[in-house]
C-alpha cells in the first residue's frame, strides 16, 4: 500500500528531490544504515577502550591489586618527571597513570584535588610527587598520607623525613632574587628578604602570587621566623610601596627579562632554565634573617587509600623516586636541584647556599596565618 500512497502524493519540488538524492547513499537501506551505525559505534567503543589512558577506576583498579596501575599526582617539572616515570615504568613493567600539574595549578591544584577526593570518600591518587614540601606536610596532618619508610631513603638526613614517615623530602630549590645584570648592578640588589619591602626596592620587585606554590611557603617562613607583627609589616611595606604580583614564579622571571621589573623573587630552577634559554639573568640568595635563604625540597608521599597503603607497586615507585639515582638526575637536570644527601653534593661538586634554620614544621604551622594575611593585606 505504501508505494501506491507515495505515488498519489503531489510532485516534489526539485530541491527536495535533490536533497533526497544527496542523502540517499546514507540511508539507502535499513541494512546498510544499520551496518554503518554498528561500524561507527564499534570504532568509537574500540577506539576509546583500546586507547584508554590507563586511568584506573578506584573502584576497580586501585582496589584490585592485580591491576598494577599506579596513579601518580605529580607537580615536579613535567619534562623531567615524565622521563623518570617512563623509565621506572619501562624497567619494572608497572603501569603508571599520571596527572602532571600545570603552571596554572602550581602544586596547590593537586593538593586540593587530593583533599576533595578524600572528602568525597574516593581517594584516587596512590603517590604524590610534589615540587615543594609544606603542602605535603599539611596533607599529612589531615591524615591523607600513609606511612612508609622507603629503604632507598636511608641515607637522607632525618630532618628531611616525617617523624611518622608519611613523606620524604629531597632535591631542594632555593628562594632567590633574580635580576638582569645588564640593567641592574649586583650592588643594587637587596641582600635580605626584609629589604625588598623598602620604598626604594619594592616597586622594582615582582613576586608570584603568595597564595600559591613555593612563594606561599616562603611567606609562611617569614611568619614563622619573624613573628606576626614583623611579617605583616613586611607585607604592608610591599603593598604600600608598589610591589608587582605575577601569576607565578616563571611569569615573575619573564617580567624581569621583559624589563617590566628589576628583580623577581623566585626559585633557583626558574633562573637556571631562563639562563639556558639565553636570558640575561643572575641571582642572589638574600638572607631571611638568620643567616640564609629558604631551601624548599621536593617531597614524595603515599596517599592514604583503600589500596595504596598495601600497594606494592606504589611503594616501589616511592622507593625509586626518593633514591639517590633520581636525586642525582634532578641535580643534573635543567632545574639543578640541590641534593639533600651530603654524599651526592660532594659527588656532584655542588654547594648548598646558606640556609635558614627555621624548621619545615614551623613553616607549615604558619601557612594558614600567612595565607590569611596575604589575602587581607596584599591580595585585596
Amino acid at each position, binding site marked *: 500500500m505504501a508505494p501506491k*500512497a*507515495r505515488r498519489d*502524493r*503531489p510532485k*516534489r519540488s526539485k*530541491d*527536495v528531490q535533490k*536533497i533526497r538524492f544527496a*542523502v540517499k547513499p546514507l*540511508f539507502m537501506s535499513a541494512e546498510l*544504515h*544499520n551496518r554503518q*551505525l554498528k561500524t561507527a559505534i564499534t570504532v568509537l567503543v574500540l*577506539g576509546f577502550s583500546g*586507547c584508554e*589512558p*590507563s*586511568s*584506573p*577506576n*578506584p*573502584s576497580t583498579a586501585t582496589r584490585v591489586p592485580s591491576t598494577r596501575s599506579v*596513579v601518580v599526582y605529580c607537580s615536579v*617539572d613535567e*619534562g623531567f618527571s615524565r622521563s623518570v616515570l617512563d623509565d621506572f615504568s619501562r624497567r619494572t613493567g608497572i603501569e603508571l*597513570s599520571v*596527572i*602532571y600539574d*600545570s*603552571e*596554572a*595549578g602550581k602544586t*596547590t*591544584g593537586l593538593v*586540593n584535588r587530593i*583533599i*576533595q577526593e578524600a572528602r*568525597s*570518600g*574516593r581517594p*584516587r591518587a596512590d603517590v604524590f610527587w610534589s615540587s615543594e614540601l609544606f603542602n605535603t606536610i599539611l596533607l599529612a596532618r589531615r591524615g591523607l598520607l600513609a606511612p612508609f619508610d622507603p629503604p632507598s631513603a636511608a641515607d637522607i638526613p632525618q630532618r628531611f623525613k616525617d617523624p611518622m614517615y608519611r613523606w620524604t623530602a629531597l632535591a631542594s630549590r632555593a628562594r632567590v632574587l633574580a635580576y638582569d645584570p645588564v640593567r641592574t648592578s649586583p650592588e643594587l640588589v637587596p641582600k635580605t628578604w626584609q629589604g625588598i619591602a623598602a620604598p626604594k626596592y619594592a616597586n622594582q620587585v615582582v613576586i608570584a*602570587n603568595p*597564595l*600559591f606554590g613555593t612563594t606561599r611557603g616562603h611567606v609562611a617562613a617569614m611568619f614563622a621566623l619573624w613573628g606576626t607583627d614583623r611579617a605583616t609589616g613586611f607585607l604592608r611595606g610591599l603593598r604600600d610601596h608598589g610591589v608587582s604580583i*605575577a*601569576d607565578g614564579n*616563571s*611569569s615573575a622571571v*619573564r617580567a624581569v627579562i*621583559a*624589563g*617590566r621589573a628589576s628583580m623577581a623573587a623566585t626559585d633557583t630552577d626558574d633562573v637556571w*632554565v*631562563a639562563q639556558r*634559554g639565553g*636570558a640575561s639573568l643572575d641571582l642572589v640568595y638574600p638572607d631571611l634573617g638568620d643567616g640564609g635563604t629558604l631551601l624548599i625540597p621536593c617531597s614524595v608521599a603515599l596517599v592514604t587509600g583503600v589500596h595504596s597503603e598495601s600497594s606494592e607497586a606504589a611503594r616501589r615507585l616511592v622507593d625509586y623516586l626518593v633514591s639517590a639515582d633520581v636525586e642525582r638526575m634532578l641535580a643534573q637536570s*635543567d632545574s639543578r636541584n640541590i641534593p639533600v644527601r651530603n654524599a651526592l653534593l660532594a659527588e656532584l661538586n655542588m654547594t648548598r647556599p646558606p640556609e635558614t634554620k627555621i624548621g619545615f614544621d614551623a613553616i607549615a604551622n604558619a601557612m594558614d596565618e600567612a595565607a590569611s594575611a596575604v*589575602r587581607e593585606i596584599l*591580595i*585585596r
Partner: protein
Amino acid sequence: MILQVSIVVQRVISWLVFALAIVWPSVALIVRCITEGDVPDGGFTISARQWTLLGRSVWLSASATAVCLLFSVPAAIGVARCGHLSRRPVIVACLLGVLLCPATIYALGWSRILPSSFSPQVRCVGVWALWAWPIPALLVGSGWSRSVRPVYEAALLATTPLKALWAVAVPLLLRYITLSALIVFVLCVSDYGVPHACLLRVYATELLGWATSSSRTIDTLWPAWPAIAITLALLVFLGRMWGGVPNTPHTGPSGAGAFCASRWMVLAWVGCFTVSWLCPVGTLAVKMVSEHALIEALTLYSRDLLWSLGLSILAGILSIMMGVGLVWGPVGRSVALSWTVVFGALPGAVIGAALIAAYNNSATGWVYDNWPIVVLSYVARFGWVGVATAWLIRQSVRRDLLDQALIDGADDGIAWGLVQVPMYLPTLLCGMAVVAALSLADVSASSLVRVPGFSPPAHILIEKFHRFEDGMLISLSLLLVVATFPPALLLSFVLKRWYR
C-alpha cells in the same frame, strides 16, 4: 522507520548530553555551595584588586572585539559578495584555518615577532582580534547575503544607496554584528591561555587561581559573580535584540555569480590571512631549531595529542547533537537553550568546579575518573556554540522546502532528517569543528577535571612556555597547527561538493 528511530536516538542523546553536561553540574554547583554552608575565603566582598582585574578583562575583551569587527570588514564583504561560500572553498579553508588554530599559538608566535618590552595589553588584544575575525566575517557576511541584501536591493528602488544602507541594511545587520561581537567578547573574557602567554593577569586567571587554591566550591563561585553578571546582561541584551524578530529565511542563491574580487579585495584578503595566520605560525616554523625537536615532541606527546584531538572532536559532535536536539526539541526549548548559553558563558573555572561537584562522588565516580568528564567539560564550556549554530540554521531554514516535504507526507522528524540536515550539514560540521578547536585550546575548565594518563596539549604548551623549552614549545605548536589542516580542508571540500 530506520530514519525515525535514528531521529529518536539523536534526540535522546542530545537531551542526555544536556542533562549530564549542563543541568546536573549547574544543580550540583548550587547544592554544593548551599550544603557546604561556608562563607567564601575572601569574604563576600569583591576586593579593589579584583575589580581592577575584572575591569582589565572587560576592557581588553571589548577592545579585542572592536578591533576584531574592524579587521573582519574586508572578509565580511568578501563573504557577502560570494553569495554562497560553497563557491569559494579556498576562502572557507582560510577562515577555518585561522579560527581552528588555538589562539595561544598565535600569542606564542607574536611573542617571537614583537620585542619583549612590547605592551602585553596591546599584544593580547591583537592576538584575540587576529584569531577571532573569521567569526564576524562569517556571520555578518552570511547575514548580508542571506537576508539583508534583497531588502537592501528593494530599498534601492526607492532611495539612494547611502540612505538604503543606513536606514535599511544597517539596522538589519546590527543583529548579526551584535551576535558576533557578543560571541567574540565571551570567548575573550573567559580565555585564560592568551593573557597567560602575554604575561597578563586577568579575571580568568584570578578565578582559576581561586579554583585551584581552594577545595571549597563557594571560593570559586562567589568571586565569579561579577563576570557572570556582565555576561548575563549582555545575553539579555542580545535576546531582546533578536527576540520578536521573525525568521529571516534563506532567500536562495541570490547573487549567484556576483562574486568578482577586485584587486583591492584580494589584497585585503591576503593581508588579513598573512597578518593573522602566516606571520605568527611562519615565525614559529622559522624559529624551529631542528627537526629533532619535532620528532621528539611527536614521540613524547603523540598519545596526548591523539587523545585530546579525539575527545575534542567527540565534544564537537555531542555539542552539535545537543544543539540540534534542543533547537528542534518538542518541549522546553527556550529554557534549555537559555540554560545552555548561560552556563557556557560562565568562567571556565566555575564550569570545572561545577563538574567536580557533580561527579566527584561514589555514584558517578566512573565519569569523574575517566575521559567522559573531560568531554562533558568541553560540552559544558562550548556547547553553546553548537546551540548557536543550530539556532542560526533554524532562523534561516527554507520554509518552502519544509512545507513541500510536509505536503509530501513527511512528518516533522522526516522533514528534519531529509530536508534540513542535508541542507545545512556543512554548517553543522563547521560548528562541530569550532567546538573541537575551542576544546583543544581550553585550559581553565580542563585544569580542574584532568584525568590520569594524558595531558591536554594546551597545558603542555603553557608548561613548556614557562620552562623556556622553545624547541619543544614550537614543535608542539606546529603539530597542533598541522592538526587543524585536515578539518579545514575537509570542510571546504564538503561544502563545495555538497552544494555543487
